[in-house]
């Protein structure tokens, strides 16, 4: 077990290195240079700026400098927001994105399992048909449409109540988080519902269900202890990649709901060509996702005793 975790972690470190290198190459093949945007700087100022950001050195030296600083956990200073370190930006804004993401994952996974199980019980009957129709809608409607509609819904609710019951945008209280995390989790919830349904229907025909029924166990017990527990396994496997999808899907939700998360910062940094912020955020996100996938895989080993971790 420990060996497996160590092995996965080592592979993870190499992956993060690969991500960092790919980011570095991508950013250095951008035409022009980061200081291009500054209006008419004199040659001396330019030289100073280049020295400050280490741009006057050869590319391979910059690369090793970048890797070295990264190992120390230092992503450098923002190009556009003077005197603000990339680390500070990540520290200030990542918790917001993470909260949003965790809430969305919670909503998506509980919702997906619940609806999926429900559709399997009511197979080909009205609840199943209604939920599956909604699922198809959830899969095919883009997230930004949901975000816009969600905001519209909040506006109308507030109008109906007469005062600002649920804030339409911004961040701070639990009320602010409600709609964005729901919108963010919706697509994943639809996907998980579909997965859960087919996996439930497969489990129903398994021999151990028949055995349990023959033993005279109550239907509720069979449902919760035998069916649900086994059907949930495929859902857990896709959770890792879905965390990645939700994290990046947060960009749109953060933009629409004016949430001060890291995703919004990333988009802003790209628009302003803020090189250090782009590189720092990408590597950070990449490392985070790699780590999450490893965690989910290890958790899977605990949930499903049949999986031997090697």
């Amino acid at each position, binding site marked *: 077990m420990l060996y497996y975790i160590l092995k996965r972690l080592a592979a993870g470190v190499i992956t993060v290195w*690969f991500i960092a290198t790919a980011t570095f190459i991508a950013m250095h093949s951008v035409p022009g240079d980061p200081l291009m945007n500054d209006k008419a700087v004199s040659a001396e100022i330019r030289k100073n700026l280049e020295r400050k950001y280490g741009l006057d050195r050869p590319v391979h030296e910059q690369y090793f400098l970048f890797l070295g600083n990264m190992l120390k956990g230092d992503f450098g200073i923002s190009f556009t927001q003077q005197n603000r370190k990339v680390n500070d930006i990540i520290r200030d804004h990542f918790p917001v994105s993470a909260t949003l993401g965790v809430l969305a994952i919670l909503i998506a996974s509980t919702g997906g399992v619940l609806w999926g199980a429900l559709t399997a019980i009511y197979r080909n009957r009205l609840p199943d048909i209604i939920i599956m129709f909604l699922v198809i809608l959830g899969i*095919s409607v*883009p997230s*930004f449409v949901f975000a816009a509609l969600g905001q519209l819904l909040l506006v109308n609710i507030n109008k109906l109540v007469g005062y600002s019951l649920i804030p339409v945008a911004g961040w701070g209280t639990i009320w602010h988080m409600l709609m964005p995390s729901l919108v963010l989790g919706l697509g994943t919830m639809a996907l998980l519902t579909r997965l859960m349904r087919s996996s439930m229907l497969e489990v129903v025909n398994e021999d151990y269900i028949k055995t349990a029924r023959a033993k005279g166990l109550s239907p509720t017990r069979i449902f919760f202890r035998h069916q649900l527990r086994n059907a949930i396994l495929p859902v857990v496997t896709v959770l890792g990649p879905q965390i990645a999808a939700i994290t990046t899907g947060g*960009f749109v939700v953060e933009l629409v709901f004016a949430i001060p998360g890291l995703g919004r910062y990333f988009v802003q940094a*790209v628009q302003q060509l803020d090189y250090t912020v782009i590189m720092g955020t990408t590597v950070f996100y*990449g490392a985070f996702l790699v780590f999450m996938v490893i965690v989910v895989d290890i958790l899977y080993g605990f949930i499903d005793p049949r999986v031997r971790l090697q």
Partner: protein
Amino acid sequence: MTDVLTRESRLNEDDFAPAQTSESVEQISRPSLSYWQDAWIRLKKNKRALISLYIIIGLALFTLAGPLLWRVDPALQDLNQISQSPSMPKQAIVVGPYQRWRGVTIEGFPAEPDEYLDTIPAPTGLHTYDDPTTQSVRLVWDPVTGAGGYNVYRNQRKPETINDLGLPLGGTLAGNEVSYEDRLNLERKTYYYSIVPTDGFDESSQYAILKVTPKLAITRDDALTRGLIDTADNVAFGDTINLEFHPFGTDYLGRDMLARLMQGARVSLFIGIVAPFLYVLFGIMYGGFAGYFGGNFDQLLMRFADFVVALPFLLFMILFKIAFGIGPGESGVFPMLIALVLLGWPATARLVRGQVLQIREQGYIQAARLLGATHHYLVIRHIIPNTMGVILVTLTFAVPSAIFTEAFLSFIGMGVAPPTPSWGSMCNEGVKTMLSHPHELFFPAFFISVTVLAFNLLGDGLTEALDSRLRSRD
């Protein structure tokens, strides 16, 4: 015992003639079909998949043949027609240039009231002076004794009480001035005008209401400059002409939505279909060779694929897009395409590799190898055609995700930049005016959803149709 023997001895030759069977002998009841013929037949039985296929063909026609039929320039901005809702063809009356109206003043009627009444009665005989048009609505009414002026209100619904009269337009300041001309942002709607007499200071509690529906009017000069008529010679005032027809309405710059949707479909479908096609092709080659040769070569290739999978997809889409020389604000269809291909292939490669590893061990491959087939021949002729089913399904499911990616990037302003329309960038523009003009968001979002849905359902249908294990169920 003896009886039996005697009966046996009575057997004659007829007893050995072949028996007549009442039931038909077992036959091969199905015609021999190739894998693809069989899959096609089963796909045709799946109604949802078939409808999806028709929708996809329809969308292709919409974007390719549509602009030939609907010859409206998607880039043409018409600031006279900003954010029009979808409608039937509109007609307008040609009118002359606006001419000042002197109004109606009754000679001999006192301008100032002689005596102050407690309640001034509502004016009677409220009517329109001429045909009400969107150029002007001219109201005339009979003077009321005791009135020193009149206030005019306009509402878009029928007023219930005196507090519900709507927008105060203005009025007259003399009891004998009994007309008012409304030229304030008139549209082709129904308006309720209310006239409230005043004694010069206070309003009466009585009022008269008139329901007016002005006709859409356009001046002849306007019609000429907008190209609705060729010459002014054969068009008289009062004639009706057809206005520009916008079946799906117009956007915030007055551009025709239908034409833009058709052109936007090109970008969306181009990226949505070409990018998956390219990266699936690359994935087939990559995974095919890795799986076929196996060993360390396979390990090396697959480790690399693992790394590419680990790259955060959308972040790198954006990074690559900048890296390929497109700054923010420039249209970037090709950088987006390249970025999608660079990041999309590993999933297919893994899948194909898995398939190839299975197929490689099959008997017919060994037979072919025994007959002296080269690697190249084996991969191209035997292995890849046998993975085609899985690949086709992957391709179908890859299309919606590519369309989503394009829409997503365009929505956050990192994809196709204006003025090039794509469904995603149209959503981006439409979401800003979502409350007042919902059609600008609805149509592009609807098209994205329908396309994604059609490809998803087709993919489901293909999965079922191509799965030969399910064949015996029919």
